[in-house]
């Protein structure tokens, strides 16, 4: 196991103070902070190796290409993909999912087909499919929460088993919710989808940073995640796709680098993965992303998840002692990543609660950064019959002291709003 206090030393931003208070950063589901090794890699790239990749023959360009492709190999190992060709760099998870929707989706989804997502989806793994279904006349279905109170906030696997048939062409679900922190046992869903001949896409934006992922074990056809939530720079996303499927897909964006031969009226496409990387990519950030992956690998993703769950268990136990707090989370902490969403309600005046924006504002005045809002999961908010939640999300540098600071901030909110 690692010591979060030691880890804090590697993150320059955590030394910042606001009005004399140290920064307590609990918005990691949004984006993580960056260790010095990642920041240094960015500077080093621009001061030592900057050149465009894949084309020029001079040494500098060779260095840049090697560094860029080196990250691809690091990603391949990180998720245990079989082939380098299966790792495509995009801008972010959203772009990775849209790539699949616009290429595989438009060629393979037709009227009468079914696409299934879950009630936990972030807008980025809902809207592309919702719009594709509208355009093609396909049906969009949503895996609901389980009715069993013991399994609150977890997906209903039985519903999926009962509602799946041969019309299912795509199962697109998240591996971990950005709102409730629920970890979805995606392997079980993938196996059922495959038994009906469907293709699967896993949104790993919240999971790749918090738990080990083995795409060969999962056997998923696609998997998408972002660098910036896992210590890396913004502007880099990954799409994993099985080589056999990627080969049959048409390109997403056209232009430089993605072509083999261009004639005035005809073109042919480059090999995988470059067929899907048109134009000059985000070289520097991809290069620096490698350091983020190395950092996480050194810690061990099993340890990261164990650390998350320790903090979540501690948070839940402290929140349980505050009667005004309503937590939106699975009962079993072992089914959660490091996210705790909650609301504050006024026990003496029902209906008059403190809005999560006001909660987040008062947290800020205490030096604690959290998120208040719908977390880009509005359909989930509708299901829960709430407008928004306040969300704490943890990462490797967070400690129980950070949770204590959050609890003190909650007390300040209750006091300010005279909620009792």
């Amino acid at each position, binding site marked *: 196991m690692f010591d979060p206090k030691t880890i804090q030393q590697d993150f320059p931003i955590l030394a910042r103070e606001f009005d004399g208070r140290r920064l307590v950063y609990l918005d990691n589901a949004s984006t993580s902070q960056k260790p010095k090794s990642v920041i240094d890699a960015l500077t080093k790239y621009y001061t030592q190796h900057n050149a465009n990749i894949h084309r020029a023959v001079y040494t500098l360009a060779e260095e840049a290409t090697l560094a860029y492709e080196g990250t691809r190999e690091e990603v391949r190992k990180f998720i245990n993909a079989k082939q380098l060709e299966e790792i495509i760099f995009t801008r972010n998870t959203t772009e990775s999912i849209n790539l699949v929707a616009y290429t595989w989706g438009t060629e393979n989804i037709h009227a009468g087909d079914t696409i299934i997502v879950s009630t936990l989806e972030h807008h980025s793994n809902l809207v592309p499919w919702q719009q594709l279904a509208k355009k093609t006349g396909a049906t969009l279905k949503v895996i609901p929460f389980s009715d069993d109170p013991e399994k609150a906030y977890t997906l209903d696997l039985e519903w999926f088993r009962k509602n799946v048939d041969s019309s299912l062409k795509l199962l697109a679900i998240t591996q971990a919710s950005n709102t409730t922190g629920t970890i979805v046992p995606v392997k079980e869903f993938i196996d059922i989808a495959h038994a009906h001949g469907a293709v699967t896409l896993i949104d790993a934006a919240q999971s790749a940073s918090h738990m080990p992922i083995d795409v060969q074990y999962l056997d998923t056809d696609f998997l998408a995640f972002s660098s910036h939530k896992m210590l890396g720079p913004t502007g880099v996303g990954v799409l994993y796709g099985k080589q056999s499927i990627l080969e049959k897909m048409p390109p997403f964006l056209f232009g430089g680098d993605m072509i083999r031969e261009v004639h005035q009226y005809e073109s042919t496409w480059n090999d995988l993965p470059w067929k899907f990387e048109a134009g000059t990519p985000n070289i520097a950030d991809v290069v620096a992303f490698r350091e983020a992956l190395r950092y996480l690998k050194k810690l061990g993703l099993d340890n990261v998840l164990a650390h998350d769950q320790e903090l979540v268990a501690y948070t839940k136990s402290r929140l349980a002692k505050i009667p005004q707090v309503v937590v939106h989370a699975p009962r079993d902490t072992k089914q959660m990543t490091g996210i705790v969403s909650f609301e504050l309600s006024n026990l003496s005046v029902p209906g008059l609660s403190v809005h999560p*924006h006001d909660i987040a504002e008062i947290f800020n005045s205490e030096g604690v950064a959290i998120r208040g809002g719908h977390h880009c999961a509005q359909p989930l908010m509708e299901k829960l019959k709430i407008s*928004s939640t306040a969300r704490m999300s943890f990462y490797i540098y967070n400690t129980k002291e950070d949770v204590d600071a959050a609890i003190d901030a909650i007390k300040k909110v209750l006091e300010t709003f005279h909620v009792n």
Partner: protein
Amino acid sequence: MDMYAENILDHFQHPRHKGAIITPTIELEDANPLCGDKLKLALQIDSTNPKNPVIKDIGFEGSGCAISQAAMSMIAEELYGKNLLDAENITKETIYEMLGVPLSTARVKCALLSYSLLKKALILLKHQ
């Protein structure tokens, strides 16, 4: 300085003119998609003197953060019984002054939801 001054909390927890009004002349709603603040504003205009229409009644409904709801309550209190011209004269600065607390960029949207709703209502009234 504290954003949650007593006057804001007072308006938030005891909103003035909250609820539906009888025979509204105009009624419209708006939301702040970023945080889910919602407001619905209704005005009853007495145009007996067409040169000087009067806001005979004002009512609002809504949910959201303290800033968005308090600002709406303050506007309603300010404009009840006043002339339409007084409503025209309300500016963003009027809202900031009424709230009287420093607002971060992110919260300006909350504070001005009621303001933009009022201005939309005034434009629609002109076209009625």
